[in-house]
Protein backbone atom coordinates (compact mmCIF):
# COMPACT_ATOMS: atom_id res chain seq x y z
CA UNK A 1 0.00 0.00 0.00
CA UNK A 2 2.75 2.42 0.91
CA UNK A 3 4.62 1.54 -2.24
CA UNK A 4 1.54 2.18 -4.33
CA UNK A 5 1.03 5.56 -2.71
CA UNK A 6 4.68 6.53 -3.10
CA UNK A 7 4.50 5.55 -6.71
CA UNK A 8 1.36 7.64 -7.05
CA UNK A 9 2.95 10.71 -5.48
CA UNK A 10 5.99 10.25 -7.69
CA UNK A 11 3.77 10.04 -10.78
CA UNK A 12 2.13 13.33 -9.97
CA UNK A 13 5.47 15.01 -9.30
CA UNK A 14 6.93 13.59 -12.49
CA UNK A 15 4.02 14.79 -14.57
CA UNK A 16 4.38 18.36 -13.27
CA UNK A 17 8.06 18.37 -14.12
CA UNK A 18 7.53 16.98 -17.63
CA UNK A 19 4.80 19.49 -18.35
CA UNK A 20 7.10 22.28 -17.30
CA UNK A 21 9.98 20.97 -19.37
CA UNK A 22 7.80 20.80 -22.47
CA UNK A 23 6.32 24.26 -22.12
CA UNK A 24 9.19 26.36 -23.42
CA UNK A 25 6.82 29.22 -24.17
CA UNK A 26 5.70 29.44 -20.58
CA UNK A 27 9.27 29.34 -19.31
CA UNK A 28 10.19 32.32 -21.41
CA UNK A 29 6.94 34.18 -20.77
CA UNK A 30 7.45 33.80 -17.04
CA UNK A 31 10.63 35.77 -17.42
CA UNK A 32 8.67 38.75 -18.69
CA UNK A 33 7.50 40.16 -15.40
CA UNK A 34 10.81 39.80 -13.58
CA UNK A 35 12.61 41.41 -16.48
CA UNK A 36 10.17 44.26 -16.48
CA UNK A 37 10.56 44.96 -12.81
CA UNK A 38 14.30 44.56 -12.83
CA UNK A 39 15.23 46.54 -15.91
CA UNK A 40 12.50 49.11 -16.25
CA UNK A 41 11.45 49.73 -12.69
CA UNK A 42 14.91 49.00 -11.36
CA UNK A 43 16.77 51.11 -13.84
CA UNK A 44 14.35 53.96 -13.38
CA UNK A 45 14.68 54.00 -9.64
CA UNK A 46 18.39 53.21 -9.52
CA UNK A 47 19.78 56.76 -9.67
CA UNK A 48 17.59 57.98 -6.81
CA UNK A 49 18.43 54.95 -4.67
CA UNK A 50 22.05 55.18 -5.50
CA UNK A 51 22.20 58.78 -4.36
CA UNK A 52 20.89 57.92 -0.91
CA UNK A 53 23.71 55.44 -0.34
CA UNK A 54 26.42 57.49 -1.99
CA UNK A 55 26.71 55.05 -4.84
CA UNK A 56 27.58 52.10 -2.60
CA UNK A 57 24.56 50.12 -3.75
CA UNK A 58 23.26 49.32 -7.20
CA UNK A 59 19.50 49.21 -6.77
CA UNK A 60 19.07 46.54 -9.35
CA UNK A 61 21.39 44.30 -7.42
CA UNK A 62 19.30 44.95 -4.35
CA UNK A 63 16.15 44.05 -6.24
CA UNK A 64 17.53 40.95 -7.87
CA UNK A 65 16.87 38.53 -4.99
CA UNK A 66 13.36 39.93 -4.76
CA UNK A 67 12.85 39.16 -8.40
CA UNK A 68 14.02 35.58 -7.86
CA UNK A 69 11.44 35.28 -5.12
CA UNK A 70 8.85 36.80 -7.41
CA UNK A 71 9.38 34.14 -10.06
CA UNK A 72 9.03 31.43 -7.44
CA UNK A 73 5.98 33.03 -5.84
CA UNK A 74 3.99 33.48 -9.00
CA UNK A 75 4.82 30.08 -10.42
CA UNK A 76 3.91 28.37 -7.16
CA UNK A 77 0.55 30.08 -7.00
CA UNK A 78 -0.09 29.30 -10.63
CA UNK A 79 0.48 25.63 -9.88
CA UNK A 80 -2.07 25.84 -7.13
CA UNK A 81 -4.62 27.57 -9.35
CA UNK A 82 -4.18 24.89 -11.97
CA UNK A 83 -5.32 22.33 -9.41
CA UNK A 84 -8.79 23.84 -9.49
CA UNK A 85 -8.92 23.49 -13.26
CA UNK A 86 -7.20 20.13 -13.43
CA UNK A 87 -9.54 18.62 -10.92
CA UNK A 88 -12.57 19.29 -13.11
CA UNK A 89 -11.17 18.98 -16.59
CA UNK A 90 -7.74 17.54 -16.46
CA UNK A 91 -5.44 14.90 -15.31
CA UNK A 92 -6.15 15.45 -11.64
CA UNK A 93 -9.66 14.16 -12.14
CA UNK A 94 -8.28 10.87 -13.32
CA UNK A 95 -5.88 10.88 -10.37
CA UNK A 96 -8.63 11.39 -7.81
CA UNK A 97 -10.41 8.29 -9.03
CA UNK A 98 -7.29 6.11 -9.02
CA UNK A 99 -6.42 3.91 -6.03
CA UNK A 100 -3.93 6.44 -4.66
CA UNK A 101 -4.54 8.02 -1.28
CA UNK A 102 -5.49 11.67 -1.24
CA UNK A 103 -2.53 12.34 1.01
CA UNK A 104 -0.18 11.01 -1.63
CA UNK A 105 -1.90 13.15 -4.25
CA UNK A 106 -1.56 16.30 -2.16
CA UNK A 107 2.09 15.65 -1.32
CA UNK A 108 2.88 14.81 -4.92
CA UNK A 109 1.29 18.07 -5.97
CA UNK A 110 3.23 20.09 -3.39
CA UNK A 111 6.46 18.46 -4.49
CA UNK A 112 5.71 18.95 -8.17
CA UNK A 113 4.58 22.55 -7.84
CA UNK A 114 7.54 23.44 -5.66
CA UNK A 115 10.04 21.81 -8.02
CA UNK A 116 8.67 23.67 -10.99
CA UNK A 117 8.63 27.00 -9.11
CA UNK A 118 12.22 26.42 -8.07
CA UNK A 119 13.25 25.78 -11.67
CA UNK A 120 11.52 28.93 -12.77
CA UNK A 121 13.51 30.85 -10.16
CA UNK A 122 16.69 29.24 -11.39
CA UNK A 123 16.00 30.47 -14.90
CA UNK A 124 15.90 34.01 -13.57
CA UNK A 125 19.12 33.36 -11.66
CA UNK A 126 20.85 33.15 -15.03
CA UNK A 127 20.45 36.90 -15.29
CA UNK A 128 22.80 37.44 -12.34
CA UNK A 129 25.83 38.46 -14.42
CA UNK A 130 23.73 41.03 -16.28
CA UNK A 131 23.22 43.00 -13.09
CA UNK A 132 26.69 42.30 -11.87
CA UNK A 133 25.90 39.82 -9.12
CA UNK A 134 28.77 37.45 -8.45
CA UNK A 135 27.94 33.82 -7.72
CA UNK A 136 30.09 30.88 -6.71
CA UNK A 137 29.14 27.22 -6.81
CA UNK A 138 28.40 26.83 -3.11
CA UNK A 139 26.29 29.96 -3.25
CA UNK A 140 24.26 28.66 -6.13
CA UNK A 141 23.65 25.38 -4.31
CA UNK A 142 22.48 27.23 -1.24
CA UNK A 143 20.23 29.45 -3.34
CA UNK A 144 18.71 26.38 -4.98
CA UNK A 145 17.85 25.09 -1.53
CA UNK A 146 16.36 28.39 -0.43
CA UNK A 147 14.30 28.71 -3.60
CA UNK A 148 12.97 25.21 -3.08
CA UNK A 149 12.06 26.00 0.49
CA UNK A 150 10.23 29.17 -0.44
CA UNK A 151 8.54 27.32 -3.29
CA UNK A 152 7.32 24.66 -0.88
CA UNK A 153 5.84 27.24 1.45
CA UNK A 154 4.02 29.06 -1.34
CA UNK A 155 2.82 25.95 -3.15
CA UNK A 156 1.31 24.47 -0.03
CA UNK A 157 -0.29 27.79 0.87
CA UNK A 158 -1.79 27.95 -2.61
CA UNK A 159 -3.09 24.41 -2.25
CA UNK A 160 -4.77 25.12 1.06
CA UNK A 161 -6.74 27.82 -0.73
CA UNK A 162 -7.30 25.82 -3.90
CA UNK A 163 -8.40 22.62 -2.24
CA UNK A 164 -11.96 23.74 -1.60
CA UNK A 165 -12.51 25.97 -4.61
CA UNK A 166 -14.84 24.70 -7.34
CA UNK A 167 -14.43 27.46 -9.91
CA UNK A 168 -11.73 29.88 -10.87
CA UNK A 169 -13.47 33.17 -10.18
CA UNK A 170 -13.26 33.51 -6.40
CA UNK A 171 -9.76 32.21 -6.52
CA UNK A 172 -8.58 34.93 -8.88
CA UNK A 173 -9.86 37.63 -6.60
CA UNK A 174 -8.34 36.05 -3.54
CA UNK A 175 -5.03 35.87 -5.26
CA UNK A 176 -5.12 39.52 -6.22
CA UNK A 177 -5.79 40.56 -2.65
CA UNK A 178 -3.28 38.17 -1.25
CA UNK A 179 -0.55 37.68 -3.81
CA UNK A 180 0.40 41.25 -4.65
CA UNK A 181 0.38 42.46 -1.04
CA UNK A 182 2.55 39.49 -0.06
CA UNK A 183 4.97 40.42 -2.73
CA UNK A 184 5.15 44.11 -1.93
CA UNK A 185 5.47 43.56 1.79
CA UNK A 186 8.32 41.12 1.42
CA UNK A 187 11.17 43.57 1.11
CA UNK A 188 11.71 42.78 -2.56
CA UNK A 189 11.60 46.45 -3.48
CA UNK A 190 12.77 48.30 -0.42
CA UNK A 191 14.79 47.50 2.69
CA UNK A 192 12.60 46.74 5.64
CA UNK A 193 14.74 48.44 8.22
CA UNK A 194 13.36 51.77 9.28
CA UNK A 195 9.87 51.31 7.93
CA UNK A 196 6.86 52.34 10.06
CA UNK A 197 5.72 49.87 12.69
CA UNK A 198 2.57 48.73 10.91
CA UNK A 199 4.51 47.90 7.77
CA UNK A 200 7.19 46.10 9.76
CA UNK A 201 4.55 44.09 11.55
CA UNK A 202 2.74 43.10 8.35
CA UNK A 203 5.93 42.07 6.66
CA UNK A 204 6.80 39.89 9.61
CA UNK A 205 3.68 37.80 9.05
CA UNK A 206 4.40 37.56 5.34
CA UNK A 207 6.06 34.22 4.52
CA UNK A 208 7.74 35.68 1.46
CA UNK A 209 9.71 38.12 3.64
CA UNK A 210 11.77 35.27 5.04
CA UNK A 211 12.39 33.94 1.57
CA UNK A 212 13.55 37.28 0.23
CA UNK A 213 15.66 37.96 3.30
CA UNK A 214 17.59 34.70 3.14
CA UNK A 215 17.93 34.70 -0.64
CA UNK A 216 19.22 38.24 -0.53
CA UNK A 217 21.84 37.36 2.04
CA UNK A 218 23.08 34.43 0.01
CA UNK A 219 22.88 36.05 -3.41
CA UNK A 220 24.65 39.29 -2.58
CA UNK A 221 27.31 37.68 -0.36
CA UNK A 222 30.10 38.46 -2.78
CA UNK A 223 28.65 41.52 -4.43
CA UNK A 224 27.83 43.86 -1.58
CA UNK A 225 30.01 44.70 1.40
CA UNK A 226 29.02 42.87 4.60
CA UNK A 227 28.31 46.07 6.45
CA UNK A 228 25.93 47.27 3.79
CA UNK A 229 24.36 43.84 3.43
CA UNK A 230 23.65 43.79 7.13
CA UNK A 231 21.68 47.02 6.74
CA UNK A 232 19.64 45.52 3.96
CA UNK A 233 18.60 42.30 5.65
CA UNK A 234 16.69 41.58 8.81
CA UNK A 235 17.31 38.17 10.33
CA UNK A 236 20.11 35.66 10.49
CA UNK A 237 19.91 33.11 7.70
CA UNK A 238 19.27 30.27 10.11
CA UNK A 239 16.23 32.06 11.51
CA UNK A 240 14.82 32.58 8.02
CA UNK A 241 15.31 28.94 7.14
CA UNK A 242 13.68 27.72 10.33
CA UNK A 243 10.69 30.01 9.88
CA UNK A 244 10.18 28.81 6.32
CA UNK A 245 10.49 25.17 7.34
CA UNK A 246 7.91 25.64 10.07
CA UNK A 247 5.59 27.49 7.69
CA UNK A 248 5.92 24.68 5.16
CA UNK A 249 4.65 22.20 7.67
CA UNK A 250 2.00 24.60 8.87
CA UNK A 251 0.62 24.83 5.34
CA UNK A 252 1.22 21.29 4.12
CA UNK A 253 -0.81 19.73 6.91
CA UNK A 254 -4.06 21.59 6.21
CA UNK A 255 -3.46 21.25 2.46
CA UNK A 256 -3.30 17.48 2.76
CA UNK A 257 -6.24 17.45 5.12
CA UNK A 258 -8.39 19.49 2.73
CA UNK A 259 -7.57 17.16 -0.13
CA UNK A 260 -8.40 14.13 1.93
CA UNK A 261 -11.84 15.25 2.87
CA UNK A 262 -13.92 13.48 0.26
CA UNK A 263 -17.09 15.33 -0.45
Amino acid at each position, binding site marked *: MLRRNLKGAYTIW*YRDVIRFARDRVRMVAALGQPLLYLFVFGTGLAPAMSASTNGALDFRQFMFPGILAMAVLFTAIFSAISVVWDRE*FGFLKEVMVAPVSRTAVALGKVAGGATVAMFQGLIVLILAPVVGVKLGVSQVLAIVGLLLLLATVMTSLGLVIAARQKTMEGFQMLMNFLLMPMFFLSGAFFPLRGVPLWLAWLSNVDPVTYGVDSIRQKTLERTVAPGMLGLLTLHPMAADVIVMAVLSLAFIVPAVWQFSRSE
Partner: protein
Amino acid sequence: MHAIEARQLVRKFGEVTAVAGVDFDVAQGEVFGFLGPNGAGKSTTINMLCTMLRPSAGTATINGYDVRTDPGGVRRSIGIIFQDASLDDRLTARENLKFHAMLYDIPSDVFRQRSAELLAMVDLTDKADDQIRGYSGGMKRRLEIARGLLHHPKVLFLDEPTIGLDPQTRRHIWQYLLKLREQEGVTMFMTTHYMDEAEHCDRIAIIDHGRIVALDAPPQLKALVGGDVIAVRTSDNERATARLRESEGVETRPGPDGQLIVETPQGDRFIPLLIDRLASGQPPITVASINLSRPTLEDVFIKLTGHAIRAGEADGVQAFRQMARMWTGGRRR
Protein backbone atom coordinates in the same frame (compact mmCIF):
# COMPACT_ATOMS: atom_id res chain seq x y z
CA MET B 1 -22.54 -11.45 -7.06
CA HIS B 2 -23.83 -8.43 -8.88
CA ALA B 3 -21.33 -6.15 -10.53
CA ILE B 4 -23.11 -3.13 -9.08
CA GLU B 5 -25.66 -2.92 -6.31
CA ALA B 6 -27.27 0.32 -5.26
CA ARG B 7 -29.69 0.64 -2.36
CA GLN B 8 -31.61 3.82 -1.65
CA LEU B 9 -28.84 6.13 -2.82
CA VAL B 10 -29.48 9.72 -1.91
CA ARG B 11 -27.40 12.81 -2.54
CA LYS B 12 -28.21 16.33 -1.46
CA PHE B 13 -26.34 19.50 -2.23
CA GLY B 14 -27.45 21.85 0.49
CA GLU B 15 -31.17 22.34 -0.11
CA VAL B 16 -31.21 20.64 -3.49
CA THR B 17 -31.77 16.90 -3.72
CA ALA B 18 -30.03 15.69 -6.84
CA VAL B 19 -30.62 11.98 -6.27
CA ALA B 20 -33.68 11.09 -4.24
CA GLY B 21 -33.37 7.39 -3.47
CA VAL B 22 -32.20 5.14 -6.26
CA ASP B 23 -32.21 1.30 -6.25
CA PHE B 24 -30.88 -1.07 -8.85
CA ASP B 25 -28.65 -4.05 -9.55
CA VAL B 26 -26.39 -4.56 -12.52
CA ALA B 27 -25.37 -8.10 -13.46
CA GLN B 28 -21.84 -9.06 -14.50
CA GLY B 29 -21.23 -8.40 -18.18
CA GLU B 30 -24.37 -6.31 -18.57
CA VAL B 31 -24.58 -3.04 -20.47
CA PHE B 32 -26.71 -0.90 -18.22
CA GLY B 33 -27.91 2.58 -19.07
CA PHE B 34 -29.15 5.56 -17.15
CA LEU B 35 -31.32 7.64 -19.42
CA GLY B 36 -32.59 11.08 -18.56
CA PRO B 37 -32.29 14.79 -19.24
CA ASN B 38 -29.52 17.00 -17.95
CA GLY B 39 -29.95 17.68 -14.28
CA ALA B 40 -31.82 14.40 -13.69
CA GLY B 41 -29.14 13.03 -11.37
CA LYS B 42 -27.20 10.79 -13.75
CA SER B 43 -23.75 12.25 -13.25
CA THR B 44 -24.31 12.55 -9.51
CA THR B 45 -25.21 8.87 -9.30
CA ILE B 46 -22.16 7.82 -11.28
CA ASN B 47 -19.97 10.01 -9.08
CA MET B 48 -21.32 8.27 -6.00
CA LEU B 49 -20.67 4.85 -7.51
CA CYS B 50 -17.12 5.87 -8.44
CA THR B 51 -16.38 7.11 -4.93
CA MET B 52 -15.99 10.70 -6.11
CA LEU B 53 -18.92 11.79 -3.96
CA ARG B 54 -20.09 10.40 -0.68
CA PRO B 55 -23.78 9.46 -0.63
CA SER B 56 -25.94 11.50 1.74
CA ALA B 57 -27.76 8.25 2.48
CA GLY B 58 -27.94 4.72 1.14
CA THR B 59 -25.24 2.28 0.10
CA ALA B 60 -23.67 0.87 -3.02
CA THR B 61 -21.24 -1.93 -3.74
CA ILE B 62 -19.13 -2.40 -6.83
CA ASN B 63 -17.71 -5.85 -7.40
CA GLY B 64 -18.45 -6.58 -3.76
CA TYR B 65 -16.62 -3.52 -2.41
CA ASP B 66 -18.63 -0.99 -0.46
CA VAL B 67 -18.18 2.57 -1.76
CA ARG B 68 -18.25 3.96 1.75
CA THR B 69 -15.96 1.58 3.58
CA ASP B 70 -13.57 0.40 0.86
CA PRO B 71 -13.17 3.08 -1.81
CA GLY B 72 -9.70 1.77 -2.66
CA GLY B 73 -11.14 -1.63 -3.55
CA VAL B 74 -13.82 0.02 -5.67
CA ARG B 75 -11.30 2.16 -7.53
CA ARG B 76 -9.09 -0.77 -8.35
CA SER B 77 -12.08 -2.54 -9.90
CA ILE B 78 -13.41 0.26 -12.03
CA GLY B 79 -12.44 2.26 -15.07
CA ILE B 80 -14.07 5.58 -15.80
CA ILE B 81 -14.58 7.66 -18.89
CA PHE B 82 -15.69 11.08 -17.84
CA GLN B 83 -17.90 13.50 -19.62
CA ASP B 84 -15.05 15.99 -19.85
CA ALA B 85 -11.68 14.96 -21.17
CA SER B 86 -9.19 14.20 -18.43
CA LEU B 87 -6.19 13.60 -20.62
CA ASP B 88 -2.96 15.51 -20.34
CA ASP B 89 -2.59 17.48 -23.52
CA ARG B 90 1.14 17.98 -23.26
CA LEU B 91 1.80 14.28 -23.15
CA THR B 92 1.57 11.76 -25.94
CA ALA B 93 -1.05 9.03 -26.00
CA ARG B 94 1.44 6.46 -24.88
CA GLU B 95 2.61 8.70 -22.05
CA ASN B 96 -0.94 9.26 -20.90
CA LEU B 97 -1.35 5.50 -20.74
CA LYS B 98 1.98 5.17 -18.94
CA PHE B 99 0.91 7.60 -16.25
CA HIS B 100 -2.31 5.70 -15.77
CA ALA B 101 -0.30 2.50 -15.41
CA MET B 102 1.89 4.15 -12.78
CA LEU B 103 -1.12 5.32 -10.81
CA TYR B 104 -2.66 1.85 -10.88
CA ASP B 105 0.62 0.12 -10.14
CA ILE B 106 0.75 -1.94 -13.32
CA PRO B 107 4.14 -3.59 -13.90
CA SER B 108 6.12 -2.35 -16.92
CA ASP B 109 6.01 -5.54 -18.93
CA VAL B 110 2.27 -5.96 -18.46
CA PHE B 111 1.87 -2.33 -19.44
CA ARG B 112 3.85 -2.66 -22.63
CA GLN B 113 1.79 -5.57 -23.88
CA ARG B 114 -1.57 -4.29 -22.74
CA SER B 115 -1.10 -0.76 -24.03
CA ALA B 116 -0.12 -2.10 -27.45
CA GLU B 117 -3.24 -4.29 -27.51
CA LEU B 118 -5.54 -1.49 -26.46
CA LEU B 119 -4.05 1.09 -28.80
CA ALA B 120 -4.58 -1.38 -31.62
CA MET B 121 -8.16 -1.98 -30.53
CA VAL B 122 -9.00 1.70 -30.70
CA ASP B 123 -6.96 2.28 -33.85
CA LEU B 124 -4.53 4.74 -32.37
CA THR B 125 -1.28 2.83 -32.85
CA ASP B 126 0.05 5.17 -35.55
CA LYS B 127 -0.63 8.30 -33.57
CA ALA B 128 0.42 6.90 -30.23
CA ASP B 129 3.51 9.07 -29.97
CA ASP B 130 1.92 12.36 -30.93
CA GLN B 131 0.93 14.85 -28.27
CA ILE B 132 -2.77 14.81 -27.42
CA ARG B 133 -3.09 18.46 -28.37
CA GLY B 134 -3.40 17.46 -31.99
CA TYR B 135 -6.11 14.90 -31.39
CA SER B 136 -9.72 15.27 -32.48
CA GLY B 137 -12.56 14.80 -30.00
CA GLY B 138 -13.24 11.30 -31.27
CA MET B 139 -9.61 10.27 -30.96
CA LYS B 140 -9.42 11.55 -27.42
CA ARG B 141 -12.51 9.60 -26.52
CA ARG B 142 -11.03 6.44 -27.98
CA LEU B 143 -7.85 6.97 -26.02
CA GLU B 144 -9.86 7.46 -22.87
CA ILE B 145 -11.58 4.13 -23.51
CA ALA B 146 -8.20 2.46 -23.96
CA ARG B 147 -6.92 4.10 -20.80
CA GLY B 148 -9.98 3.14 -18.79
CA LEU B 149 -9.36 -0.51 -19.60
CA LEU B 150 -5.64 -0.59 -19.00
CA HIS B 151 -5.90 -2.05 -15.54
CA HIS B 152 -8.47 -4.73 -16.44
CA PRO B 153 -11.41 -3.22 -14.57
CA LYS B 154 -14.47 -5.35 -13.93
CA VAL B 155 -16.78 -2.41 -14.41
CA LEU B 156 -16.45 0.45 -16.85
CA PHE B 157 -18.33 3.67 -16.16
CA LEU B 158 -19.12 5.92 -19.07
CA ASP B 159 -20.60 9.33 -18.38
CA GLU B 160 -22.19 10.57 -21.60
CA PRO B 161 -19.66 8.69 -23.73
CA THR B 162 -20.45 10.29 -27.06
CA ILE B 163 -21.64 13.72 -26.10
CA GLY B 164 -20.43 16.44 -28.40
CA LEU B 165 -19.23 14.07 -31.08
CA ASP B 166 -20.47 13.87 -34.65
CA PRO B 167 -22.70 10.92 -35.67
CA GLN B 168 -20.03 8.98 -37.50
CA THR B 169 -17.63 9.12 -34.58
CA ARG B 170 -20.42 8.13 -32.26
CA ARG B 171 -21.10 5.06 -34.36
CA HIS B 172 -17.43 4.09 -34.28
CA ILE B 173 -17.16 4.52 -30.56
CA TRP B 174 -20.09 2.21 -30.05
CA GLN B 175 -18.47 -0.33 -32.34
CA TYR B 176 -15.49 -0.39 -30.01
CA LEU B 177 -17.59 -0.59 -26.92
CA LEU B 178 -19.62 -3.52 -28.19
CA LYS B 179 -16.48 -5.27 -29.38
CA LEU B 180 -15.17 -4.68 -25.90
CA ARG B 181 -18.09 -6.34 -24.27
CA GLU B 182 -17.62 -9.39 -26.49
CA GLN B 183 -13.90 -9.71 -25.99
CA GLU B 184 -13.44 -8.65 -22.39
CA GLY B 185 -16.77 -9.35 -20.72
CA VAL B 186 -16.61 -5.96 -19.00
CA THR B 187 -19.73 -4.71 -17.27
CA MET B 188 -20.66 -1.28 -18.57
CA PHE B 189 -22.62 1.35 -16.73
CA MET B 190 -23.51 4.26 -18.90
CA THR B 191 -25.37 7.54 -18.60
CA THR B 192 -26.77 9.32 -21.58
CA HIS B 193 -29.48 11.67 -22.73
CA TYR B 194 -29.34 10.34 -26.28
CA MET B 195 -32.22 7.96 -26.96
CA ASP B 196 -30.48 6.15 -29.78
CA GLU B 197 -27.46 5.50 -27.61
CA ALA B 198 -29.64 3.95 -24.94
CA GLU B 199 -30.84 1.36 -27.47
CA HIS B 200 -27.47 -0.38 -27.13
CA CYS B 201 -28.12 -1.22 -23.50
CA ASP B 202 -29.36 -4.53 -22.13
CA ARG B 203 -31.42 -2.68 -19.59
CA ILE B 204 -32.21 0.96 -19.03
CA ALA B 205 -33.20 2.90 -15.97
CA ILE B 206 -35.09 6.06 -16.85
CA ILE B 207 -34.29 8.76 -14.36
CA ASP B 208 -35.99 12.09 -13.91
CA HIS B 209 -35.70 14.56 -11.06
CA GLY B 210 -33.47 12.22 -9.10
CA ARG B 211 -35.76 9.18 -9.19
CA ILE B 212 -35.94 6.08 -11.34
CA VAL B 213 -39.31 6.07 -13.09
CA ALA B 214 -38.78 2.84 -15.03
CA LEU B 215 -36.23 0.05 -15.27
CA ASP B 216 -36.35 -2.62 -17.94
CA ALA B 217 -34.96 -3.79 -21.28
CA PRO B 218 -35.62 -1.45 -24.24
CA PRO B 219 -38.23 -3.72 -25.91
CA GLN B 220 -40.19 -4.02 -22.68
CA LEU B 221 -40.02 -0.30 -22.08
CA LYS B 222 -41.30 0.38 -25.55
CA ALA B 223 -44.14 -2.05 -24.95
CA LEU B 224 -45.25 0.30 -22.17
CA VAL B 225 -46.23 2.65 -24.92
CA GLY B 226 -48.50 -0.04 -26.31
CA GLY B 227 -48.18 0.02 -30.05
CA ASP B 228 -47.55 2.46 -32.84
CA VAL B 229 -47.66 6.12 -32.03
CA ILE B 230 -49.62 8.54 -34.19
CA ALA B 231 -49.09 12.24 -33.60
CA VAL B 232 -51.74 14.40 -35.19
CA ARG B 233 -52.51 18.10 -35.33
CA THR B 234 -56.16 18.93 -35.83
CA SER B 235 -58.28 22.04 -36.12
CA ASP B 236 -60.13 21.08 -32.96
CA ASN B 237 -58.34 18.74 -30.58
CA GLU B 238 -61.07 18.54 -27.97
CA ARG B 239 -63.80 17.53 -30.41
CA ALA B 240 -61.40 15.16 -32.13
CA THR B 241 -60.68 13.40 -28.85
CA ALA B 242 -64.36 12.95 -28.11
CA ARG B 243 -65.18 11.83 -31.63
CA LEU B 244 -62.43 9.24 -31.73
CA ARG B 245 -63.49 7.93 -28.36
CA GLU B 246 -67.09 7.47 -29.48
CA SER B 247 -66.57 6.09 -32.95
CA GLU B 248 -63.40 4.05 -32.61
CA GLY B 249 -63.09 3.57 -28.88
CA VAL B 250 -59.55 4.89 -28.80
CA GLU B 251 -58.15 7.24 -26.19
CA THR B 252 -55.88 10.07 -27.05
CA ARG B 253 -53.52 12.02 -24.91
CA PRO B 254 -51.88 15.44 -25.31
CA GLY B 255 -48.37 15.51 -26.65
CA PRO B 256 -45.66 18.11 -27.16
CA ASP B 257 -46.33 21.10 -29.43
CA GLY B 258 -50.12 20.87 -29.27
CA GLN B 259 -50.32 17.46 -30.87
CA LEU B 260 -52.69 14.66 -30.01
CA ILE B 261 -51.11 11.27 -29.45
CA VAL B 262 -52.95 8.11 -30.34
CA GLU B 263 -51.55 4.69 -29.51
CA THR B 264 -52.80 1.79 -31.50
CA PRO B 265 -51.51 -1.39 -33.05
CA GLN B 266 -51.21 -1.22 -36.84
CA GLY B 267 -51.05 2.52 -37.00
CA ASP B 268 -50.64 2.48 -40.75
CA ARG B 269 -54.12 0.96 -41.12
CA PHE B 270 -55.59 3.34 -38.58
CA ILE B 271 -54.54 6.60 -40.23
CA PRO B 272 -57.05 6.60 -43.13
CA LEU B 273 -59.77 5.65 -40.63
CA LEU B 274 -58.84 8.49 -38.34
CA ILE B 275 -58.82 11.13 -41.06
CA ASP B 276 -62.13 9.84 -42.37
CA ARG B 277 -63.85 9.81 -39.00
CA LEU B 278 -62.72 13.31 -38.15
CA ALA B 279 -63.70 14.75 -41.53
CA SER B 280 -67.05 13.05 -41.82
CA GLY B 281 -68.48 14.08 -38.47
CA GLN B 282 -70.42 17.27 -37.74
CA PRO B 283 -68.70 19.75 -37.81
CA PRO B 284 -65.85 18.36 -39.92
CA ILE B 285 -62.45 18.46 -38.26
CA THR B 286 -59.45 18.88 -40.52
CA VAL B 287 -56.13 17.23 -39.91
CA ALA B 288 -53.25 19.66 -40.33
CA SER B 289 -50.43 17.14 -40.01
CA ILE B 290 -50.02 13.52 -39.16
CA ASN B 291 -47.03 11.45 -38.17
CA LEU B 292 -46.61 7.73 -37.61
CA SER B 293 -43.78 6.18 -35.68
CA ARG B 294 -42.88 2.90 -34.11
CA PRO B 295 -42.44 3.41 -30.38
CA THR B 296 -39.06 4.79 -29.36
CA LEU B 297 -37.54 5.44 -26.00
CA GLU B 298 -38.39 9.06 -26.49
CA ASP B 299 -42.06 8.09 -26.50
CA VAL B 300 -41.53 5.99 -23.41
CA PHE B 301 -39.91 8.96 -21.73
CA ILE B 302 -42.70 11.30 -22.68
CA LYS B 303 -45.31 8.83 -21.50
CA LEU B 304 -43.67 8.26 -18.15
CA THR B 305 -42.71 11.81 -17.34
CA GLY B 306 -45.16 13.88 -19.34
CA HIS B 307 -42.50 15.90 -21.07
CA ALA B 308 -39.78 15.51 -23.65
CA ILE B 309 -36.13 15.33 -22.72
CA ARG B 310 -35.32 18.94 -22.08
CA ALA B 311 -32.17 20.97 -21.61
CA GLY B 312 -31.31 21.38 -17.94
CA GLU B 313 -30.75 24.67 -16.22
CA ALA B 314 -27.20 25.90 -16.17
CA ASP B 315 -25.44 25.93 -12.86
CA GLY B 316 -21.98 26.91 -11.72
CA VAL B 317 -20.25 23.78 -12.96
CA GLN B 318 -22.08 23.88 -16.29
CA ALA B 319 -21.00 27.46 -16.77
CA PHE B 320 -17.44 26.47 -15.92
CA ARG B 321 -17.72 23.73 -18.52
CA GLN B 322 -18.86 26.18 -21.20
CA MET B 323 -15.90 28.37 -20.36
CA ALA B 324 -13.57 25.40 -20.56
CA ARG B 325 -14.92 24.48 -23.99
CA MET B 326 -14.28 28.00 -25.15
CA TRP B 327 -10.74 28.07 -23.84
CA THR B 328 -9.73 24.76 -25.29
CA GLY B 329 -11.11 25.82 -28.66
CA GLY B 330 -14.02 23.39 -28.46
CA ARG B 331 -11.83 20.48 -29.29
CA ARG B 332 -14.66 18.11 -28.56
CA ARG B 333 -15.89 18.08 -32.08
